[in-house]
C-alpha cells in the first residue's frame, strides 16, 4: 500500500539517531512546559523556536512537534493536582481531576490522563494518515455560517458545566462572552469596552484569565482554609491505576479520541472545544451523570483524550492545505517558513521528508511520552506532600511567569490578580468558572462568524436555513440547552438537583 511505503520512508527519517534525540528533547522540554502552570503549548513553542535555529527542516519540525505533544501531555498535571490549569483546554479536566486528587486518587487520575493521551494520540495519527486529505476538503466547506453554528453548538456545552444552577451557568457563560467583546473590534477598528484603559485594547488573553480565575482564586480560597485545621492536600491513597478504572475509561477514551480528532480539523479553538464537548458527551450519555464533577474518572479520560486527538487533527489543515488553523499550528507554520519550507497544498509532494518524517515522529513521540510520563506520576504526586504554605507561593510565582510571558507586561499580572479576586467571589457564591473560559474562547469567533455570514447574505437570516450543516448544529445545540429543563419538569433530573 502506498501509505505504508510513505510511512516506512518517514520512519527512516524519524529513526535517524539525531532525530530520535530531537524528538526526545522536544518531549522532555514540552512536558516541562506543560507541567509548569501558565505556559500552554502555543506560548511555550513560540518561546522555544530559537532552539530550532540551524537545524534541517525535518529535525526542526520534529523537535517543535515534540514540544507540542509534550506540552499537551503535561498540561493536565497541575490541573489535576492543584486545580491550576496549564492551558485553557485543561479547564474541563479540572472538574473531575481535581476532585479525584482531593479524594486521594491523584495517581490514577494522572495515569488515565497519560494513557488516554497516548491512545488518543495514536488513533489520531492513524486517522491523520488515512483520512487527512479528504477531511481537510470537507473542513474547507465550513464558511462563516457553519462556523457560527458550530460556536453555538460549542456554547450549548454550558449545560454540562453549570453545576447546580443553569441560570448561574449562563451568567458565567455570558460574562465570558462579554470579556471576548473587549478590545479592538476587527471589522470596524472600533474600541469596545476599553473604558479608557489602554491595556484593555488587546482584549483579555485566555491564559491570563485562566490563571487568574482558577489558579489565583484557588489559592485565595485555600489560604483561608489553612488556619481552620482542615487538611487540604497531603492525602495520597494509591498511585497506580487499577484495571477496573482503566476498563471503565476505555469507552470514554475512544469516543474522546474520535470526537477530538474531528473537531481538531476545524479551524479555531480546537483543543478547548474538543475537550469541553467530549466531557459533555460522556456526561449526557452516562447512566450516572450525577457522578460527574465528584471525581468521575471518565470525566478526566474523555477530555484529555479529546484534546490530544485534536492536537493531531489540527495538523491536517496545516499539512494538507498549508493553512494554520489554530494557535499552535500557526507557530508551526511560522517555524516551517523559518527553516525554508513553505506550507502549501503541495507540502506532501514537495517536502515528503518533512511530512512523513513528522508523522513517523508522532508515533515515536507518543511512545516516548508514555514511557516518560508514567514513572513521573510518582514524582508529581509527591508535590501534594509539600506544605501548602510553601506550595501556594511557589505555584503563584511560576504561574506569574506564564502570565508575564504573554505580553511581557506587569499589568497582566495585576489583571490576573483582579480576575482571581473575581473568581474568588464567584466561587463563594457558587458560580461555575469553566463556562467563563468557554465563552471567552468562543465569543470572538462566534461574533465575527455571525457578522461575516450576515454580510454575505446582506442581513438575511435565510443563510442559516440554507445550510444543512448549520441547521443541524443549531437544532442539536438548542435541544441540548433545553433538554435539561424538560427532563427536570418530568422529574427525571430531580435526584441530581438534590
Amino acid at each position, binding site marked *: 500500500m502506498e501509505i505504508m511505503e510513505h510511512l516506512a520512508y518517514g520512519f527512516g527519517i524519524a529513526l535517524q539517531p539525531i532525530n530520535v534525540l530531537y524528538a526526545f528533547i522536544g518531549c522532555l522540554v514540552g512536558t*516541562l512546559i506543560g507541567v509548569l502552570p501558565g505556559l500552554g503549548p502555543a506560548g511555550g513553542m513560540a*518561546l*522555544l523556536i530559537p532552539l530550532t535555529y540551524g537545524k534541517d527542516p525535518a529535525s526542526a519540525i520534529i523537535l517543535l512537534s515534540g514540544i507540542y505533544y509534550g506540552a499537551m501531555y503535561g498540561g493536565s498535571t497541575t490541573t489535576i493536582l492543584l486545580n491550576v490549569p496549564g492551558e485553557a483546554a485543561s479547564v474541563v479536566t479540572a472538574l473531575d481531576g481535581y476532585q479525584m486528587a482531593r479524594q486521594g486518587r491523584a495517581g490514577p487520575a494522572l495515569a488515565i490522563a497519560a494513557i488516554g493521551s497516548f491512545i488518543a494520540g495514536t488513533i489520531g495519527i492513524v486517522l491523520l494518515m488515512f483520512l487527512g486529505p479528504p477531511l481537510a476538503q470537507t473542513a474547507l466547506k465550513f464558511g462563516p455560517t457553519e462556523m457560527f453554528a458550530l460556536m453555538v453548538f460549542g456554547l450549548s456545552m454550558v449545560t454540562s458545566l453549570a*453545576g*447546580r*444552577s443553569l*441560570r*448561574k451557568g*449562563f*451568567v458565567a457563560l*455570558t*460574562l465570558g*462572552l*462579554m470579556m471576548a*467583546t473587549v478590545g479592538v*473590534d476587527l*471589522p*470596524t477598528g*472600533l474600541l*469596545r*469596552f476599553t*473604558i479608557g484603559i489602554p491595556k484593555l485594547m488587546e482584549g483579555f488573553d485566555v491564559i491570563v484569565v485562566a490563571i487568574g480565575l482558577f489558579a*489565583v482564586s484557588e489559592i*485565595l*480560597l485555600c*489560604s*483561608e482554609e*489553612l*488556619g481552620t485545621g482542615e487538611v487540604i492536600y497531603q492525602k495520597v491513597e494509591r498511585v497506580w491505576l487499577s484495571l477496573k478504572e482503566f476498563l471503565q475509561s476505555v469507552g470514554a477514551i475512544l469516543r474522546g479520541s474520535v470526537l477530538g480528532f474531528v473537531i481538531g480539523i476545524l479551524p479555531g479553538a480546537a483543543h478547548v472545544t474538543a475537550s469541553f464537548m467530549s466531557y459533555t458527551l460522556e456526561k449526557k450519555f452516562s447512566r450516572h451523570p450525577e457522578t460527574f464533577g465528584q471525581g468521575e474518572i471518565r470525566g478526566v479520560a474523555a477530555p484529555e483524550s479529546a484534546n490530544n486527538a485534536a492536537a493531531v487533527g489540527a495538523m491536517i489543515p496545516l499539512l494538507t492545505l498549508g493553512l494554520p488553523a489554530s494557535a499552535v499550528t500557526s507557530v508551526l507554520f511560522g517555524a516551517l517558513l523559518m527553516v525554508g519550507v513553505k506550507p502549501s497544498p503541495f507540502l506532501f509532494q514537495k517536502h515528503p521528508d518533512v511530512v512523513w518524517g513528522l508523522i513517523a515522529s508522532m508515533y515515536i513521540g507518543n511512545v516516548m511520552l508514555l514511557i516518560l510520563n508514567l514513572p513521573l506520576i510518582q514524582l508529581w504526586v509527591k508535590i501534594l506532600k509539600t*506544605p501548602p*504554605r*510553601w506550595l*501556594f*507561593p*511557589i505555584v*503563584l*510565582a511560576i504561574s*506569574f*511567569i506564564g502570565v*508575564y*510571558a504573554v505580553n511581557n507586561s*506587569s499589568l497582566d*499580572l*495585576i489583571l490576573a*490578580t*483582579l480576575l*482571581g*479576586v473575581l473568581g*474568588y467571589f464567584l*466561587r*463563594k*457564591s*457558587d*458560580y461555575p468558572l469553566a463556562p467563563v473560559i468557554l465563552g471567552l474562547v468562543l465569543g470572538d469567533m462566534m*461574533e465575527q462568524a*455571525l*457578522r461575516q455570514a450576515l*454580510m454575505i447574505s*446582506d*442581513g438575511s437570516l435565510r443563510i442559516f436555513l440554507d445550510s444543512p450543516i448549520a441547521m443541524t448544529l443549531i437544532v442539536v445545540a438548542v435541544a441540548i440547552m433545553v433538554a435539561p429543563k424538560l427532563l427536570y419538569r418530568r422529574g427525571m433530573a430531580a435526584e441530581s438537583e438534590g
Partner: protein
Amino acid sequence: MRPEGRLGGVLILTFAIAYFIVGLSMPRSSLGDPLGARAFPLVLGGLLALLGLSLAVAPVKVGGGAEGSGRPSMKAAALAVLLCVYGYTLPLAGYLVGTILFIGITAYLLGERSWRLLIGLSAGVSVGIYLLFTQVLDIPLPAGLLEFMKG
C-alpha cells in the same frame, strides 16, 4: 435562602445595565456590515440583565453549595494585595529579587515561622525557578535590580 444570592443578582443586573449603556454609545451598523460592532454586545447585555433580574427576584435555593468558609478573610485579602504589589514591582525589582520576597512573605503570612526556612527556602526556590527558565529553557525573565550583573 441566603441574602447574598439576591445581592449577587442585583450586582449582575447593575453590571449588565452599565455594559448595555456603554454598548449603546457605539455606532449603529455600517454599510456592508448589517450587525455592526454593537448588536452582539447589546444582546449579551440584555441577556445578562434578564439573568441578573431573575436571580435577584428568585435566588437559587442551594444549601452549602458554595466553596470556602463563608465570609472573605483578611488572609485572602492580604494575599491579593501582596500579589498586586508583586506583579506591579516585578519589572522594577526583577524576577529573582521580587520572587524571593514574595515567596518569603507569603509563606510567613500562611504560617511558616522558622526564619531559617523562610530565608533559605525562598532564596533557593527562586534561584531554582530563575535558572530553570533563563538557563535551561532560555526564556528571558526581567532582571530588574540585578541588571548590572548581566555581561
